[in-house]
């Protein structure tokens, strides 16, 4: 194809210089998104940290209850403690057992639940 077009000076539109402002909004958006992700990661790590802390508390409590039950039964067996009504011991031991089960339920339901994804 021959060069038939006149080769005059091409005048460019100089008014369209909006890109830096548009770029700024895109960059600002990127920085906001990065901050959001940082917060989410922090939230997740705090969640895991609290979970670990509460797990330790509950484990300690469970150990205390089990040790108490054992000590309680041994004390009764060795006649260090005596109760007039034999049902009292049964109620206390059953109550303690239910407490252990209740705590186990809390552990399973809340502490081992998946942390929020988003």
């Amino acid at each position, binding site marked *: 194809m021959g060069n038939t077009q006149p080769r005059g000076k091409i005048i460019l539109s100089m008014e369209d210089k909006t*890109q830096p402002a548009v770029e700024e909004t895109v960059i600002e958006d990127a920085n906001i*998104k990065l901050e959001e992700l940082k917060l989410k990661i922090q939230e997740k790590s705090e969640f895991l940290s609290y979970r670990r802390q509460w797990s330790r508390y509950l484990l300690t409590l469970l150990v205390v209850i089990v040790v108490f039950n054992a000590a309680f039964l041994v004390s009764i067996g060795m006649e260090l403690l005596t109760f007039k009504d034999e049902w009292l011991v049964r109620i206390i031991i059953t109550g303690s057992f239910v407490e252990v089960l209740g705590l186990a339920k809390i552990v399973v339901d809340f502490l081992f639940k998946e942390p929020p994804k988003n």
Partner: protein
Amino acid sequence: MAIDTTPIKKQAEELIDKYVLTVPVHMFELADLMGIKWQSTSTERLKKIIERKSNKKDIIPNWEDVYGYFDHTTKTIYLNDENQSITRQRFTIAHEIGHMILHHNLQSLMRKIFLRQDVVVPRDEIEAEANYFAGYLLMPDGAIEDRLKYTVLMIGGEQIIKKFAKLFAVSPEAMRVRFKTFKKEYPELWATHNLEEKLF
């Protein structure tokens, strides 16, 4: 196309250090700092500019695919802003800066390269180098490595690509290509973040 990425990375890192750039890089501001003029233009006008500069007509079959042009003599980037998102325009600036830095010795050759297919240096290689430079400048290794920890919050696949593209203010296409090169260069990091199953 296999290119030697080490010197390209070095040049991009030098530029990042020189202008103390932070991610996402302000590309228009960087062009100003480097004394590069830029000009938005339509496809039709870009066609006229290139034809005028090269003294040839109909040298490119699809002008819509020409995103930019760098005029070495006037140090001006002509940006095709027709249907081009700001992220693509940012990449175009980075790409043309790449040409300026990497191929400054080929200034005279560039015109020939642009016009002819049978030149000594294949045009594809030059374009691949400029693309790698642009990808690295907008998404440096360190910044990708730093942000990979956030993939744990994302499901995978396209979601990761789109979210990362937003974090770097680039197009998802550019992010996908950069991820592929990053994976190739740092397979151990890729594996650490379990991205094998989440991404490609």
